[in-house]
């Protein structure tokens, strides 16, 4: 599965099939502009890491792609498989194959994880023109996925994310990812709050879900996660713009020199924000 990364920047660019194309995206929360012109394109099967200091707009980018109404898009365009993503409501984006693994998964008291998962699964199936599955069929489907992220089946009977530990919540997000089989998965700081063992489990699950048709955007503050989920590209966000893009070496460089290095470097060069590539 890691062959995409191994094949290197050059060759993968040549055979690139466009999945997501972001152009000049600006977004704000209330009066405050957070994304200040992001351009990025993600090809089929690629893994892009988005790094950056706190407040750089990483999570906002993830939320805006998923359609969170708390943010207003003020400029730019986003196309997903040729469709105008910004025109689509959040549920239509989900049904079209965009999945966001939340940084802070939300609790839904009284709703069992199994019921929630099956409802979501059926909505996605309906959108693909497939039949809904009943609870019995679903048990069979979810069983294999549970193993993937090392989740105790008992967790299916608990209320969605209620009383889950930080690690359980993150694993639950990956379980949903595994069940819903999206085309584009956005992981928003999935590594935050995880100890090293939990990080292993989660990364392992993600790696098993990698394939030539599924793209990932991995948002992270730390390089650590990228040791396990190896990206094809790394983009650094600062102050709502992509200030540098490169391959996985960029992440290592950042780890060594810190984000300040990049900010200084960027200021010294006086260069315009780098685009996706």
């Amino acid at each position, binding site marked *: 599965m890691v062959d995409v990364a191994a094949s290197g920047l050059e060759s993968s660019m040549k055979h690139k099939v466009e999945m997501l194309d972001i152009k000049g995206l600006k977004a704000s929360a209330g009066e405050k502009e957070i994304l200040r012109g992001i351009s990025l394109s993600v090809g089929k099967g690629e893994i892009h890491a988005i790094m950056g200091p706190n407040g750089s707009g990483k999570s906002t980018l993830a939320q805006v792609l*998923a*359609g969170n109404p708390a943010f207003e898009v003020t400029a730019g365009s986003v196309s997903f498989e040729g469709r105008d993503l910004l025109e689509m409501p*959040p549920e239509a984006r*989900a049904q079209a194959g965009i999945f966001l693994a939340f940084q802070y998964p939300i609790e839904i*008291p009284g709703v069992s994880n199994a019921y929630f998962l099956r409802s979501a699964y059926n*909505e996605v199936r309906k959108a693909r023109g497939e039949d809904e599955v009943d609870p019995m069929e679903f048990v069979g489907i979810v069983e294999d996925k549970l193993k993937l992220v090392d989740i105790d089946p008992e967790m299916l009977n608990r*209320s969605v994310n209620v009383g889950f530990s930080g690690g359980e919540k993150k694993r639950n997000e990956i379980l949903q990812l595994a069940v819903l089989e999206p085309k584009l998965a956005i992981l928003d700081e999935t590594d935050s709050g995880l100890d090293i063992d939990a990080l292993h489990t989660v990364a392992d699950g993600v790696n098993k879900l990698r394939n030539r048709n599924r793209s990932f955007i991995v948002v992270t503050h730390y390089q650590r996660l990228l040791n396990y989920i190896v990206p094809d590209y790394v983009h650094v966000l600062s102050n709502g713009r992509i200030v540098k893009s490169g391959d996985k070496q960029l992440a290592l460089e950042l780890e060594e020199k810190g984000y300040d290095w990049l900010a200084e470097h960027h200021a010294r060069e006086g260069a315009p924000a780098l685009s996706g590539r």
Partner: protein
Amino acid sequence: MSSQIDSLIAREYAAGFVTDIEQDTLPPGLDEDVVREISRLKAEPPFMLEWRLKAYRRWLTMKEPHWPNVHYDAIDYQGASYFSAPRKKTLLGSLEDVDPEILKTYEKLGIPLLEQKRLAGVAVDAIFDSVSVGTTMRDELAKHGIIFCSFGEAVRDHPELVEKYLGSVVPYSDNFFAALNSAVFSDGSFCYVPKGVRSPMELSTYFRINAADTGQFERTLIVADEGAYVSYLEGCTAPKRDTNQLHAAVVELVALKGATVKYSTVQNWYAGDKEGRGGIYNFVTKRGKAYENAKISWTQVETGSAITWKYPSVILQGDNSTGEFYSVAVVNNHQQADTGTKMIHVGKNTKSTIVSKGISAGQGNNSYRGRVFVSPRADGARNYTQCDSMLVGNRCGAHTFPYIEVANKNAIVEHEASTSKIGEDQIFYLKQRGLSAEQAVSMIVSGFCKEVFKELPMEFALEAQQLLGITLEGSVG
């Protein structure tokens, strides 16, 4: 936030159709002659007429209560008709003779009455406007000695039981609406489960208001003799009309020594339109009396009616008796609900549990009102109350009025309450997984109500959940 939550168009009320049949309706107005006429039309024995007249005279001295947290224009008690019945006479016990239009009505509502299409394992008494049009499964029940019939039949065939228990829990003098009901009630359901018998099936009454400008006043009396068990379900719907209609029912439950009565309601009377025009005024008195070691459990899902005013209560008369109240009340658009319960601890070591979930959407107003009373002799009495409110949007209201009176030092009374707003973040999370806003709200609210839904019999839990979704449809944009 508020831009997200906004009012959309509510889905059509599916039960809002009118059945076109010939009906005999008394002219509008209420006086002693009307009371006498109702009693005559029903061929009642003298004790019933006497009781009605006492109730009527008492009612004349009473004032409509205005302490509930609801607002409505004055009701014209002389403007409504107090009796309406389908013209075609039904031979008692013979469903095949029921007007086919009426059978169709129930079928449309998902309550087939005829033998071949009957709901498995549920006996139904169908009340159409003021009268019972048919009771199913009665032969099967009779094998167990269970009497399940319309109130009118009970008065005719089992007058001794009616005379003994009628008014024994809710006296005619109890309150304004109970007095009115006692004077003019036309029919209802009656059930008697003999000593030691466990009812082999769920019993249910399905109330349907059809005629315009009539009030519906039915009365239900359920008696579970010593050690008996019965689970009872009640459903209700009405056509959509621009005018308000009064529904003032009384339900009395008697659980004798060691008996259990479980009473579940899914109330879906017409709620009025988006602007608050029309809808049923649901002013109902429900109360049970639990004797030694007996248990009475009320579960209600209130989604309909323009105004709901009801407090299904338990008098914990006997030692070691138990009372339960599980309630979901939903208001949307301009609906108002003032509902809750009373748990009156009289006997020693009596226990009561109250779980109330109020959901307010649109410009709806929802009040929980509950009274827990522990008498001086109720040593070891225990009550636990949990009262949660959820707000959908920012034009609705949720209120809680708990009254706790404890006159015994050994009693333990707990009260927990919470108010929450449905989370924008929860809705977005579910949408991101492919669910529509409405599915999301419905799922979140169902989760909120889970503790109550699990008390409902299986087939009704599903119906209740669906109704909840319909009631809240359009509450989130």
